[in-house]
């Protein structure tokens, strides 16, 4: 009799532990998803801003066709990208071409006096910042989640219910992502 009770108690304990691990895995997975959707919002915002930007500067920057085309191209690639890895690559390319554009803008004082352009530039800068801050948040969440999946004993639960590791949102060269230093005086 006592043996049966102990058996039941042990089984109940095991089930409880399983449930708690399962729940914490679900919670982490949702946090990763939520963090990703936050990046996605900002990436979309950037995609929406670029046509406006090109439209505004086209008249001023007649000699910079190449730079502007590369931005448009990078944008359409980024819009089409599907997986996290592809997106990261395409968005990095877009960031690079926008960085080049910011350097070129220095040669156009007229443009820098255009109120419309200035507010677009502010929006774009802010969106870039938001992307990088939400990327940091996303990577933190992915790290927590992947750790949980790999570590014992939660890895058993993860294996049984097919929790798979998530990709980090990495940009190959952090230096290239940085906004170039420009001084306005």
């Amino acid at each position: 009799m006592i043996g049966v009770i102990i058996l039941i108690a042990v089984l109940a304990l095991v089930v409880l532990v399983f449930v708690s691990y399962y729940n914490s895995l679900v919670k982490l997975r949702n946090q990763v998803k939520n963090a990703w959707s936050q990046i996605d919002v900002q990436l979309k915002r950037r995609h929406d801003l670029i046509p406006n930007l090109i439209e505004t500067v086209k008249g001023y920057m007649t000699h910079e066709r190449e730079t502007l085309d590369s931005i448009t191209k990078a944008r359409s690639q980024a819009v089409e990208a599907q997986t996290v890895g592809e997106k990261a690559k395409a968005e990095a390319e877009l960031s690079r071409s926008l960085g080049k554009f910011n350097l070129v803008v220095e040669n156009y004082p007229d443009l820098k006096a255009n109120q419309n352009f200035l507010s677009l530039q502010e929006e774009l800068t802010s969106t870039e910042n938001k992307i990088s801050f939400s990327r940091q948040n996303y990577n933190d969440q992915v790290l927590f989640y992947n750790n949980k999946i790999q570590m014992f004993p939660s890895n058993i639960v993860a294996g049984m219910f097919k929790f798979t590791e998530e990709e980090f949102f990495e940009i190959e060269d952090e230096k290239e992502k940085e906004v170039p230093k420009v001084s306005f005086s």
Partner: protein
Amino acid sequence: MGVTLILLGFIFGSVYNPKSGGMVGIFIAVALWTVLFLVTYSSGSKILLAVSGAKEVTKNVHPQLYNVVEEMKIASGHPFMPKVYIIDSPAPNAFATGLKPDNTAVAVTAGLLTKLNRDELQGVIAHEMSHIVNRDVLFMTVSGIMLGVIVLLSQVFVRSMFYGGIGGRHSKSRDSGQAQIIFLAIAIIFAILAPIAAQLLYFAISRKREYLADASAVRFTRYPEGLASALYKISQSTEELKSANKVTAPMYIANPLKKKGMKLSDLTSTHPPISERIRILRSIAHSADFNAYQNAFSQISGKKTKIIPQAELNDAKPIDIRGASGLPFVGQTQKQVKRNVGDLVMQLNDFSFINCPCGVKLKIPPSYKYKKVKCPRCGREHKG
């Protein structure tokens, strides 16, 4: 501080009635604190914002400020967007308020907007955002009210002693009379010391919270120089923030009540000395995580105090510091920026604008009653 409050209630109560008065005293002290807290909690941040004359702004009014707040909201991982306010004052300063996470606000002065560039503003907002994330406003309100109750009880007690002379009322038996005299002596000492001790404790907590907010700001922005140079500019300003007072002071980024020649390293200051905060921030060179700030703090201040909770230090991993964005405010020259912000504040205060063909922009206050207004330069008449 809570312990001081309960002890105070017990001792004062015991003076009036040695047998059961202690419990009654505790009850009164705690009840008083609860009532005051509930009043503050339900009125929320409205009082503070109203006292400082802050006006709410939307994204359309000042996109940059709104964007920076949103960026820091994302960086801090706070789920709710705080409301954004501008205070009409030339003194550069900022504060955060809100007791509930879903109903918070960040307020900056017009002076701050004219003096700082984007990176510096980001540093200041990050500091305020970390006050919100760390729930410092709630924390400081709770301890501020406790301080208030301690001071109040001590005052009432000392005054009732002075005028009432309660000594003779309960001296029926010798034992209780003696106990009463002992309690009386303790109570008088306590009534003098407790408010002082509570005040010092309150200031110490406030200062520690400021350091923590600086550390979090570095982690959020990954750019310590932004906050450092913002603090430098704030410390260099000579304007005075008229709407600040003793109660609202701990909420601001820099002590708004500084006086000429006053040493900020004073024990009775709500904020750590600004020069020390700047030196700590500037000595961070390699990483923007909590460990880097803690090390810089120990090195500069020479104190071993843990500014940041140990659990956070254990979890911290190095974060790369980013470069300056080099972006100014919308508008080119300093003069233009100042004018833009000035117009903005007037707009928020219901001024109306008329552009005269001669190039003058007439600014009409809401109290202007006449139907026509004359341009001061060319003499044309406009409808008011």
